[in-house]
């Protein structure tokens, strides 16, 4: 066992850290307040390799591994969680196509995603009536000659209005007795006829991230854009989400670290009753708790990433990381607002944004409840 980072991991972390500090952090407030999608930042991230961190170099990625990806996500998230979510989804789409795509699909789409040429990727799985219960999806895809025709609605699609490449799930066969069967996955390019991008959601947090509903009405997709085989869709969704959970766990760690650092800094400046806030034991203990839980969350996240990188099974560990880190981030950000007092509640300080941004982390890419279901299933299976 060894927790030291290797040279590649250190380099990726350093690159992401300085980029986050110099380019992302100064714009985070603007992204949030004006709901500004950080397009120009993604272009630069593509150049730095941050949109395909764990994608092979021959497909235009950085080939730096899943641990490096987690570290990069943590760094970008300390600066701006909205920017980080687009980064996460793009990496996830690139990895999924690199993993499950045909040679032609890999060559065509992965470099576009990893380089930022597609700007960002999008992941269209949830529907208005089903999120966690993804197998209940209703969007249909009918084979007509050398095309599939998609009909249905998708909900909560991050970056949906900007993504050059999307992966979309639809039913190619009726649910029958097993709803997981009959789901397929498609690569959808650009903004094809028959696809309508709806009005962006007005969200509590992640306001710099674009979240839209999509409507498919007779939208034609070339048959060659089927990812995997017909009926592989549910498996591919789970595969992508397992890795995705590491991304969101990393995002939670990053936001919590930002909240902790802001609290440490503020507590040293602000005085009350003749001493610094940092000298009150109640606040010191509060920060000690945050730092302890954050340390545990980072270790759980890196463990899941390491197992993924080592080619081992990591279902349980990814869910543990996502569950623990996202719940921890709620507490960390809430306490950060408390430590800042009234100033924590106004947008002069970033902590109220951290709290709003963190809130979605226990919901998306599998709610905490879904993570507990996954963990329970895994541990009880192992117990026999």
């Amino acid at each position, binding site marked *: 066992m*060894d927790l030291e980072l290797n040279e590649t991991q250190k380099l990726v972390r350093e690159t992401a850290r300085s980029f986050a500090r110099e380019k992302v952090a100064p714009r985070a407030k603007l992204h949030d307040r004006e709901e500004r999608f950080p397009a120009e930042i993604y272009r630069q991230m593509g150049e730095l390799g941050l949109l395909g961190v764990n994608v092979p170099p021959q497909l235009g990625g950085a080939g730096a591994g899943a641990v490096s990806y987690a570290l990069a996500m943590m760094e970008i998230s300390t600066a701006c969680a909205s920017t980080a979510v687009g980064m996460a989804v793009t990496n996830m789409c690139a990895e999924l196509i690199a993993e499950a795509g045909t040679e032609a699909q890999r060559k065509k789409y992965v470099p576009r995603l990893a380089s930022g040429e597609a700007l960002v990727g999008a992941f269209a799985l949830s529907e208005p009536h089903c999120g966690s219960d993804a197998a209940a999806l209703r969007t249909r895809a009918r084979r007509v000659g050398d095309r599939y025709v998609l009909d249905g609605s998708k909900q909560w699609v991050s970056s949906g209005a900007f993504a050059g490449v999307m992966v979309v799930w639809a039913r190619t066969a009726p649910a029958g007795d097993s709803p997981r069967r009959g789901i397929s996955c498609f690569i959808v390019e650009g903004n094809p006829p028959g696809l309508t991008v709806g009005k962006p959601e007005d969200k509590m947090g992640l306001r710099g991230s674009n979240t839209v509903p999509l409507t498919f009405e007779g939208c034609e997709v070339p048959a060659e854009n089927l990812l995997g085989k017909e009926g592989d869709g549910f498996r591919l969704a789970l595969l992508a989400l397992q890795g995705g959970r590491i991304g969101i766990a990393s995002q939670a760690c990053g936001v919590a670290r930002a909240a902790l650092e802001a609290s440490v800094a503020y507590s040293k400046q602000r005085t009350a009753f003749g001493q610094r806030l*940092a000298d009150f034991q109640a606040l010191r203990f509060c920060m000690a708790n945050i730092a302890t839980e954050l*340390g545990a969350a980072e270790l759980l996240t890196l463990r899941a990433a*390491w197992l993924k990188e080592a080619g081992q099974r990591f279902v349980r560990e990814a869910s543990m990381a996502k569950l623990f880190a996202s719940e921890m981030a709620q507490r960390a950000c809430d306490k950060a607002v408390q430590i800042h007092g009234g100033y924590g509640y106004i947008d002069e300080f970033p902590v109220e944004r951290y709290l709003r941004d963190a809130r979605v982390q226990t919901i998306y890419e599998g709610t905490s409840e879904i993570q507990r279901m996954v963990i*329970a299933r895994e541990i009880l299976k192992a117990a026999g």
Partner: protein
Amino acid sequence: MNFELNDVQREIQRVCRDFAARELTPNARRWDDRHEWPTEAVKKLAELSLLGMCAPEKYGGAGLDNVCYALAMEEISRGCASTGVIMSVNNSLYCDPVLKFGSEEQKRDFLTPFAKGEKLGCFGLTEPEAGSDAAAQRTTAVRKGDEYVINGSKNWITVGPKADAIVLFAMTDKAAGHKGITAFLVPTDSPGFDRQPPDKKMGICAAWSCTIYLEDCRVPAKNRLGKEGDGFKVAMSTLDGGRIGIASQALGIARAAYEEAVAYSSVRKTFGKPIREHQAIQFMLADMATEIDAARLLVLRAALLKDQGVRHSMESSMAKLYASEMAGRVCHHALQIHGGMGYSKEMDVERHVRDARITEIYEGTSEIQRIVISANLLKE
């Protein structure tokens, strides 16, 4: 980065797990119930070289790393938390400071037989009026010729009733505060060294502790560990390591409670199905498993840093704080899953609740750990 244990670490874990399942788990309830010192178990810890795990072989130790030690502590404590703390005291609180601060002669006399497990050591820092606030020591040591004369008292000395020697702290210069504390190696058969009967405790009942009175207790000057005034440093550095041991103990207790809860939930039925099929129970188990893993990673991180010789006060305190409070929660939920049976002494889980409780108190309360962590966090 590598989260996999190496072959030696895995082997230690396996040996300890087998030993605990065979020799500790079946007896732990009886030892607890009768407040019986686990004589046979301690003898076997010695045979398995578990009493001086990190001491070099030339001093009778096993020459293993701190990751091995943490893993072993977890497994032994999973079987019996009392046996776990006896092991931890001898390894972390006794052998460790003698190895780190002792002279060659002191190592020969006060380390080798203890690391081999022929003798047992303990650690005397706490006093009736100086627990967390260790610098408030009242025990004094006065140099008289080539001896020190020690007067005062120590309490909650785990393994005290059975120990052959103690790393004892006393004030040699009261005016100097914590810089006036000095450490001594004191054989427990020294004149003026008086042990009281074992304390009556809520948990870890088989790990005897006692109060010690020192009345003109004479100790040769050559038994001083480190220099005069070094005592606080010796104590704090020892506790950095000791906290890894106690964090591992907490982890072992939590594992026992969790594993018993999983097993019980598979056999116990309500409303026509095993309770493990109820979502409320599943979610409790999922949270328990997650927190156990989180604690183990914090413990192993601290152990790795100690192995590298890097300062690890903050990481040890984080491990101790999180693991001990986690053990409290996990044992509480494990008892809940057992329902009425959990409250009965027919099952082990009520013992785990009692055993876990002390891990938030000894070797630095949770509050002391937060003081250490925040001091590091807010360092200018």
